[in-house]
C-alpha cells in the first residue's frame, strides 16, 4: 500500500505531524523570548488539530475532549500566562543565546534519524495509520530535550519543558489513539499547576540572583572569580 492510497484525511494527519516536527525545529532555532512562546502556541494548535483529525478518523469520542484541553491549555492559556509573566519580568523582547545555531540544527537532524531507526522495530506492533508518526513524536521529545540543554534563560527552558510534554502527548495520540481520559485529565492539570509554579519560581530566581540566566546558578560563592 503506497502513500497515495491513503485517504486525504490520513494524509492531512501525517502532514500536520510533519509540521509539528518543523515547529520543534523552529523552537530550537528561535532566540527571541516572545517568538519562542508564539511558536510554542502554534505547536499547541497543531497538536489540537491532529487530535481532532485522529478523532474523526477513528471515531474515539474522548479524543475530542483531549483536543479541547490541548487547545485551551497549550495553545491559549499557557502561552498567554508565559507572555504575561515575561512582560512583568521585562524580558519579553529579550534575546536568549542559542549556542551555535547551525550545529544545533544539524544535531537535531541527526536526532530525527536516530529516532526513526529506534522506533522502526516498535512500529509494527502499533495499529492504525498514524503509526508512522511515532518516530516524529519521539523526535519532538528529543528536540525539546536538546532545547532544554542548549538554553540559558529560565523562561525558554520552561517552554522547552512544555514542548517535551507536547511530544509525549503527540506520541500517545499517534501510537495508541490517546491515553485513558482520567490520565489525560490528570496530566493536563499537572501541566497547568506546573506552569503556575514555574511562574512563581521565575520571581524567586530573579530575586535571589537578579537575572533569569540560569548559568549564574552554577556559581556558589558570592565573589566574582
Amino acid at each position, binding site marked *: 500500500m503506497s502513500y*497515495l492510497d491513503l485517504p486525504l484525511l490520513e494524509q492531512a494527519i*501525517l*502532514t500536520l505531524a*510533519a509540521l509539528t516536527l518543523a515547529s520543534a*525545529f523552529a523552537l530550537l*532555532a528561535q532566540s527571541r523570548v516572545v517568538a519562542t512562546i508564539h511558536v510554542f502556541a502554534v505547536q499547541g494548535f497543531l497538536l489540537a488539530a491532529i487530535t481532532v483529525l485522529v478523532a474523526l478518523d477513528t471515531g474515539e469520542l474522548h479524543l475530542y475532549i483531549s483536543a479541547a484541553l490541548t487547545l485551551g491549555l497549550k495553545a491559549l492559556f499557557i502561552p498567554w500566562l508565559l507572555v504575561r509573566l515575561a512582560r512583568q519580568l521585562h524580558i519579553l523582547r529579550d534575546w536568549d543565546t542559542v549556542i551555535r545555531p547551525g550545529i544545533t*540544527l544539524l544535531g537535531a*537532524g541527526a536526532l530525527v534519524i536516530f529516532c526513526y531507526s529506534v522506533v522502526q522495530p516498535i512500529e509494527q506492533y502499533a495499529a492504525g495509520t498514524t503509526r*508512522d508518526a511515532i518516530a516524529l513524536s519521539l523526535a519532538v521529545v528529543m528536540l525539546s530535550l536538546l532545547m532544554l540543554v542548549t538554553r540559558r534563560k529560565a523562561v525558554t527552558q520552561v517552554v522547552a519543558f512544555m514542548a517535551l510534554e507536547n511530544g509525549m502527548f503527540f506520541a500517545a495520540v499517534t501510537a495508541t489513539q490517546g491515553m485513558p481520559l482520567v490520565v489525560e485529565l490528570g496530566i493536563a492539570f499537572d501541566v497547568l499547576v506546573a506552569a503556575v509554579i514555574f511562574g512563581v519560581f521565575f520571581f524567586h530566581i530573579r530575586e535571589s540572583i537578579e537575572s533569569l540566566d540560569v548559568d549564574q546558578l552554577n556559581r556558589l560563592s558570592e565573589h566574582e572569580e
Partner: protein
Amino acid sequence: MARDLSAFAWVLVVLQTAVFVAAAPLFAGWVKRIKCYLQNRRPPPYLQPYRDLRKLLTKEIVLARTASPVFRIAPYVVCGTAVLAAAAIPLLAVELPVSAMADAIVLVGLFALGRFFLALAGLDVGTAFGGMGSSREMMVASLAEPAMLMVVFTWSMVAASTNLSTVISHTLEMELAIRPSLLFALLALLLVGIAETGRIPVDNPATHLELTMIHEAMILEYTGRHLALMELAAQLKLMIYAVLVANLFVPWGIATTLTGGALAAAAAALTAKLAFLGAALAVGETAVAKMRVFRVATFLAVAFTLALVGMLSFVILEASR
C-alpha cells in the same frame, strides 16, 4: 512525419528560450511595480527595464587599467549560463528535445559556473568593494547550494528522477495528495531562491549605495554592454527560480502536447502563476527588513533544515509503507 515533428519541437525550443529571455526583464519590472504601489511611489512603465538595457547596450565600455581578460569574458559566461539554464527548464511544455538536459543537478552546476565567474570578475579589478562582494557571494552560495541539492533530492525521491521534465510529468499524472515532503521542499526552495537571487532580506537589489550589498558590489566596475549582460543575467536568474517554483509545485496548465491550443493555455496559466509569485515577492520584500550579513548563515541553515525535514518526512511517513 517524425522528422517534421522533431524539427517543429526544436523550433519550439528556440521560441521558448526567446520568450524566456524576453520575459525576464518584464518579470523583474513587474516585481518593481508592485513594490512601488505598496510603498506609495509612482511605478516605472512596464518597458523601463528594456529601455535601461537598450541604453546600456549603446553606451561606451570603460575598462579599469587593472582589468584582465577574465573581467571581459565574465559577463558572457555569466549571461550564457543563465540563458542555457533558461533553455533547459520546461517553461511552457514538457517532453521537448532539450528536456534530456533539464536535469536539476545540471541546473545547480550551471548556476555554480556562472557564480564562479561572477565572483572572479568581482575580484579581478582589485577594488575593495568587489572583493567583499565576491567573498559574501561565495559565503551565501556555499550555504545555499546544499539546501538546493536537498530540495532536488527530495524531488528525486518523490518522482524517482532528477530530470525536471520527468518530475513535472510525474506530478501531473499523480492523483491529488497532501505530501508533507513537498510542502517543506517548497518552503526551502523559496528561501534558497530569495538568497540566490539577492532579494531582501539577504541582499537589496534596488541600491548600490550600501555597505552590505552583495551582487551590486561585484558588478560595480562594469559599464555599457557588459553591465547590460550582467543585469540581464540577474533578471534571468530571478525568472528561473520563479518558473522552477511555479512549474514544479503547481504544474497544472503546462502543455503536455505540442498543439497551439495547449501552448496558449500554458502561456496563460504561467503568466497568472508568475504574476502571483512576483506580487508575493514584492509584498514579502516590503514587509521584511534586510538582515545583517552574518545572520544570512542562520537564514540558510533554516532553509537547509526545512529541506532536510522534507526529505526525512518522505522517508519516515511516505516511503515506509
